């Protein structure tokens, strides 16, 4: 009975969404305030209904209700409780329900907290948001009902893919979805603005916090996914340029561009059509991600159970939403330009370069991701595009971006004095060159590009810190009170930019100076990696709640002194009939010693194990940098200016100290 209530709630939510997609829009056109306000009520009702349905599905998982097909296919009564709960979104139907839940929550959040948004814009935005809702709710009801029953119910379920039974991956999808789907509200704002035919600095100011919130969540989601891949897959890699990783990375890149171009729209009343286009494209890329993961269009390690019919349905939704919004853009946007002029060297120009480079990077990733499909369509040849392509095309775009990124915050609006800025940075440049030479001296092997990139990372971190110190006059009296008076958004920027530099150091260290040894090990085998002496002492059997584990004991010594003992595992899940690797890692700031074991496939090697030992320098900088990015975003989000309304129709005054 209870699962049917969930299904019923979804149907009711669809009705609410239908009402919301028409009534507020009409109200805004006719100036009918009551109709406009109806959007607020329906948004909240919709969110409550979908949240109820989600709760119902989660309950089915918690009590292991094996009359529900979805639970049978993805759960098992022996599974630990936390993974029973996470199983709710570890499959196509459940994750789709989470998708629409977040969509509805963002709509409700705008309805409830967007009090300072003019009625017309708000009503239209909520209507557009409801169009997306209608599309995905009907998709769920007609092709992917999560509450489908089975009769007779089986004794037990098939268990969740053991790879997904992991704390990192339990949190990763919700965060990623908040990011992905969060851009929907920015999209709705953009389409509403196109319908209204008006974009002004106030519009940009309302849009920015939502963009920022989605961006923060997406950053966290991607970082978590990467972290999971690092310790769970047993290869020691954290990014594989897999199509599904790429489709989460593209909205991030374009969302970052949007974040910056919205600043220009807000402060200088220009870049309007560009900002709108970015808002549309960022969400379009999120939709593309949803499509690729669920349609089986490309091969990927992530794909859900696929079904061409579902693919067609989502493609139809994509065509309608992206095609529709871009048509509207093509018709309405040309009338929107105007606003502040700026010199070729100015903060606007800097942000323009930022946007162009980020857009190029996005296009590169998009091209690489879809190229196998293009080629197959044209020549019927099958290839896969891997890291070599992405490294060769992505790095040349990002390095200039980072160099410019260091200088950008020094430039003033309208017209800037680049020569003056650069002359102030002379000392910094000298320090950076020295530090780079030191890196070159202390590292052995690895490409020259790695050393140069490391220098660029130092440059970014140094320049960002210097700009902050100058802005708050760190070395003069009362620095603390100036730090407190400065808008939090500007501290957020500093933190996030430093975060990028730190992530970059992690990327370089762990890819250029990684050391790897793979050996057949039996008790007593000794292996050397990066100055560590490893001794494989043996394997013992252990029992977990729903798995059996073979645990290796490996003694780690350096220069004769015992450092630690590591216990990488191989887990076998009898119900799901698969095995997972549980690596064991000795984490230090300088680098990780990473051990994983596997059973050798070759015959005649009984009793031997494949021991993979890696040393990954600076890899933890990735997670630290990501945390800095998220903190920077959150700090900026807590800025008072983003919460209180902007004065309408007036150009935002150019601050004496540039804030962003």
């Amino acid at each position: 009975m209870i699962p049917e209530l969930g299904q019923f709630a979804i149907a009711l939510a669809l009705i609410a969404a239908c009402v919301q997609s028409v009534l507020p829009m009409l109200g805004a056109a006719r100036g009918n305030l009551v109709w406009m306000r109806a959007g607020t009520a329906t948004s909240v009702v919709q969110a409550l209904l979908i949240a109820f349905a989600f709760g119902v599905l989660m309950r089915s998982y918690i009590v292991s209700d094996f009359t529900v097909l979805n639970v049978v296919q993805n759960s098992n009564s022996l599974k630990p409780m936390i993974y029973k709960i996470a199983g709710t979104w570890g499959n196509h139907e459940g994750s789709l329900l989470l998708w629409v839940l977040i969509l509805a929550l963002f709509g409700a959040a705008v309805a409830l907290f967007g009090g300072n948004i003019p009625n017309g814009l708000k009503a239209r935005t909520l209507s557009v948001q409801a169009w997306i809702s209608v599309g995905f709710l009907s998709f769920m009801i007609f092709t992917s009902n999560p509450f489908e029953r089975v009769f007779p119910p089986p004794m037990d379920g098939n268990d969740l893919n053991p790879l997904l039974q992991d704390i990192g991956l339990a949190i990763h999808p919700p965060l990623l979805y908040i990011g992905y789907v969060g851009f929907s509200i920015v999209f709705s704002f953009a389409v509403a603005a196109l319908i209204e035919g008006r974009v002004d600095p106030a519009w940009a100011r309302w849009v920015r916090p939502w963009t920022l919130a989605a961006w923060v969540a997406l950053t966290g989601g991607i970082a978590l996914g990467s972290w999971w891949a690092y310790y769970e897959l047993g290869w020691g890699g954290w990014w594989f340029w897999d199509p599904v990783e790429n489709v989460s990375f593209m909205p991030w890149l374009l969302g970052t561009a949007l974040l910056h171009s919205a600043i220009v729209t807000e402060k200088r009343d220009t870049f309007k059509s560009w900002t709108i286009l970015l808002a549309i494209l960022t969400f379009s890329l999120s939709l593309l991600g949803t499509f690729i993961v669920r349609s089986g269009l490309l091969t990927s390690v992530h794909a859900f159970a696929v079904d061409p019919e579902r693919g067609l349905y989502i493609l139809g939704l994509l065509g309608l939403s992206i095609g529709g919004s871009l048509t509207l853009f093509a018709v309405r946007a040309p009338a929107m330009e105007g606003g502040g002029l700026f010199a070729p060297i100015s903060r606007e120009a800097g942000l323009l370069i930022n946007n162009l480079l980020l857009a190029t990077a996005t296009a590169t990733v998009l091209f690489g991701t879809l190229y196998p499909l293009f080629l197959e369509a044209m020549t019927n040849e099958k290839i896969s595009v891997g890291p070599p392509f992405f490294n060769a095309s992505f790095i040349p775009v990002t390095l200039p971006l980072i160099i410019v990124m260091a200088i950008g915050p020094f430039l003033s609006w309208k017209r800037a004095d680049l020569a003056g800025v650069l002359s102030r940075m002379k000392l910094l440049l000298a320090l950076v060159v020295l530090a780079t030479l030191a890196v070159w001296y202390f590292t052995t092997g690895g490409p020259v590009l790695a050393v140069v990139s490391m220098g660029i990372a130092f440059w970014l971190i140094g320049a960002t810190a210097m700009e902050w110190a100058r802005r708050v006059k760190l070395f003069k009296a009362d620095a603390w009170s100036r730090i407190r008076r400065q808008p939090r958004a500007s501290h957020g920027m500093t933190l996030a930019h430093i975060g990028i530099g730190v992530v970059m150091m992690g990327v370089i260290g762990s890819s250029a100076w990684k050391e790897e040894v793979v050996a057949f090990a039996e008790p007593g085998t000794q292996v050397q990696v990066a100055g560590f002496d490893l001794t494989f002492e043996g394997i013992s059997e252990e029992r977990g709640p729903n798995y059996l584990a073979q645990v290796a004991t490996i003694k780690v010594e350096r220069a004769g002194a015992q450092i630690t003992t590591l216990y990488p595992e191989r887990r076998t899940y009898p119900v799901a009939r698969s095995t997972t690797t549980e690596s064991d890692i000795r984490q230090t700031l300088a680098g990780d010693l990473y051990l994983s074991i596997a059973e050798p496939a070759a015959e005649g090697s009984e009793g031997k194990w494949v021991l993979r030992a890696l040393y990954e320098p600076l890899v933890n900088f990735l997670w630290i940098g990501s945390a800095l990015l998220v903190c920077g975003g959150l700090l900026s989000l807590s800025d008072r200016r983003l919460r209180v309304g902007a004065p309408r129709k007036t150009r935002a005054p150019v601050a004496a100290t540039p804030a962003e």
Partner: protein
Amino acid sequence: MRRILFFLPLAIVAFLGGVFLWGLQDGRDPGSIPSALINKPAPAFELSAIDGVGTPGFAQSDLASLEELSLVNVFASWCAPCRAEHPLLTRLAEEEGIPLFGLNYKDKADAAAAWLEELGNPYQRIGHDLSGRVGIEWGVTGVPETFIIAPGGTILYREAGPVVGDGMKRLQKALADLREDYP
């Protein structure tokens, strides 16, 4: 001119949409890798029979001397999809009147014998590829796989995966098309 520029994103998206639509067509499997051996003669091999099974062994010369289309099926007793395709493959060989050869891949002799005893033996000849060496020569990526061989021993088609459902449809279509070239 400038107005046209604003239609550019739409044009790109329309193009992408067309490619995606093509990509969703029925029967396209992005994971399938085309065999490198299509239109090449079958690799040289000579395999003995499975111990305890009456069917004779299987070698390249058996394919070379043939004057009609034939099928080569890679199977193993440990492979669950093989069990699923077995009755369908048996019926196909009977209905089409086409010789069916077996490549018993990395299988223990007694297990393979018991499997054939239980499910029936539609194969004219079976080669026992215990080490998997011949499977590698044939470019086998997984079990089961089914090849269509031309008279004289040229490999014409490969179906990776079990010939049930869509796989069966593809195999039958390929056979029907090839029948026109090799009556």
